[in-house]
């Protein structure tokens, strides 16, 4: 409203002069000077408007960014300061002399001892093997001590898919297993996927083409569900995830493992 007044006050005398029409020459001069005056702000105004708009845009962006940063980063920090700290009493001698306190502490200590014994009993004193499928390493333990470690190969995580939508996923199972059987000079009976993978026709179940000699190394230890710990002719792949689910080892490691683990020995795979 104030602006309106000022503008109206500024325009009124001009209108009055024009309506009187007394001095045309002077009027012309006045009109000329008015034009010049009105042109001056016209050249400065766009620049001013541009900078003002730019300023407003920059300010808006800065404010928006600050708000986002405040919500994303400051509010979570504020969360952490919002609840009061509860102090614990420490070394209260008076309390430590209390019979009830002593009884509670002794009960707790006994409980801890009992639980520790129970927990430690889970780790077998007998031999067991740990297979790390992520790093493709194995660790052999006897009497809770590491006696051998080395590289192995585990499942490749490849999913073999046929055009008929048959699928096989080649991964080593994880969890707790045990040795079901031990074999020397094992023979590999090729499963269906082995033929599908090569593009060969699948032979009948007991066809001679299914049997391959010498590819599993000198020994094999069965861990159930058809999975084996065995040797390999592809020694350069040890330490890499390349198998169809079995655990492959080099000849020396396999021999030690075969001689150390018995039927029933635990196999931990992760």
């Amino acid at each position: 409203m104030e602006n309106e007044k000022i503008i109206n006050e500024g325009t009124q005398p001009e209108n009055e002069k024009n309506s009187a029409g007394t001095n045309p020459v002077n009027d012309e001069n006045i009109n000329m000077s008015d034009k010049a005056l009105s042109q001056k702000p016209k050249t400065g105004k766009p620049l001013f408007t541009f900078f003002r708009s730019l300023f407003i845009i920059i300010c808006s962006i800065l404010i928006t960014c600050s708000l986002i940063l405040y919500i994303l980063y400051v509010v979570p920090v504020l969360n952490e300061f919002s609840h009061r700290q509860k102090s614990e009493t420490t070394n209260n001698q008076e309390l430590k002399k209390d019979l009830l306190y002593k009884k509670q502490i002794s009960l707790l200590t006994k409980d801890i001892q009992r639980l520790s014994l129970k927990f430690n009993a889970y780790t077998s004193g007998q031999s067991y093997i740990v297979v790390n499928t992520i790093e493709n390493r194995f660790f052999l333990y006897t009497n809770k001590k590491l006696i051998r470690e080395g590289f192995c190969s585990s499942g490749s995580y490849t999913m073999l898919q046929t055009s008929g939508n048959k699928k096989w996923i080649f991964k080593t199972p994880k969890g707790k297993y045990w040795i079901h059987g031990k074999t020397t000079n094992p023979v590999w009976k090729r499963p269906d996927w082995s033929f599908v993978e090569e593009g060969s026709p699948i032979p009948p179940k007991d066809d001679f083409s299914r049997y391959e000699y010498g590819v599993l190394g000198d020994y094999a230890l069965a861990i159930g569900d058809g999975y084996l710990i065995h040797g390999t002719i592809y020694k350069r792949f040890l330490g890499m995830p390349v198998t169809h689910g079995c655990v492959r080892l080099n000849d020396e490691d396999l021999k030690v493992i075969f001689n150390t683990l018995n039927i029933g020995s635990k196999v931990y795979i992760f």
Partner: protein
Amino acid sequence: METEIDNKKPGRKVTFIVLISIISVFIIYYSVMSMISPVRKLEQIKNEFGAKTAEKSDVEQRILMDSTYLKLLKEKAFLQSRIVMAETDSIYLTLNLADSTANIEISGVVVHKAKMKSVKTSKILKTGNGNAILSMLATPFTISHAFATIKKEPVMIKMAPKDTSEYKPDIMPDTSITEPVNYILEMNGGIRIYVYQEENVKLSDKMSHLSFDINDRLRDTWSALKRVAVLKVPEYHPFIKIRLPRTDAKIIFRAIPKNGQIAVFN
């Protein structure tokens, strides 16, 4: 024309002031609601796990606040959790924040040990009602969600060849690829375990960490905004943030089942 333009200015100013006021009020409201959320969470934990102090004598209440007692109680709770998990044949994780170790265990056998490089926990877990937090930690947590920069199972699909002429032998896998490893394990009860790789040497590692962190913050903020909009206090997630060597972080993430269990010693 000039009169018209100038007439709009006061309107603009008013709009601007109103807008700023609305935003300011909302920010204050959002901040207050967010600050209430940890208090609510602590109350919820107290109600669920806390000892009924009214029923306890003065000495018993003082015992519950004693540090020696609480330390033993923590140890017992951790052992109990580990035993509960050991009874299952599943793979599980134990986090010992006191000695900065993260172990993978199967049936009570430690199969992998990792040393944490840094540990940061939310204040609720550190200084909240000791007894209630301890009781909460006495039972193992179960993973309900996981957000990660790596796949749980890096499955590659291979189409079977139609005949032997199409068969190509497998090539040696490229083990030099080191993808950034950052993940969040969200537990039942709302606790979150953030695992970040320790190595942030390469720019790609830093960028991955930053984008992962921003995504998490955006996800959190969005859910908080949705709750605040309907006048509800946002959910607070007590957290444990740890930094591990990349390989250890990867091993833990891939080894633990999708809904695996975790025990925490605080």
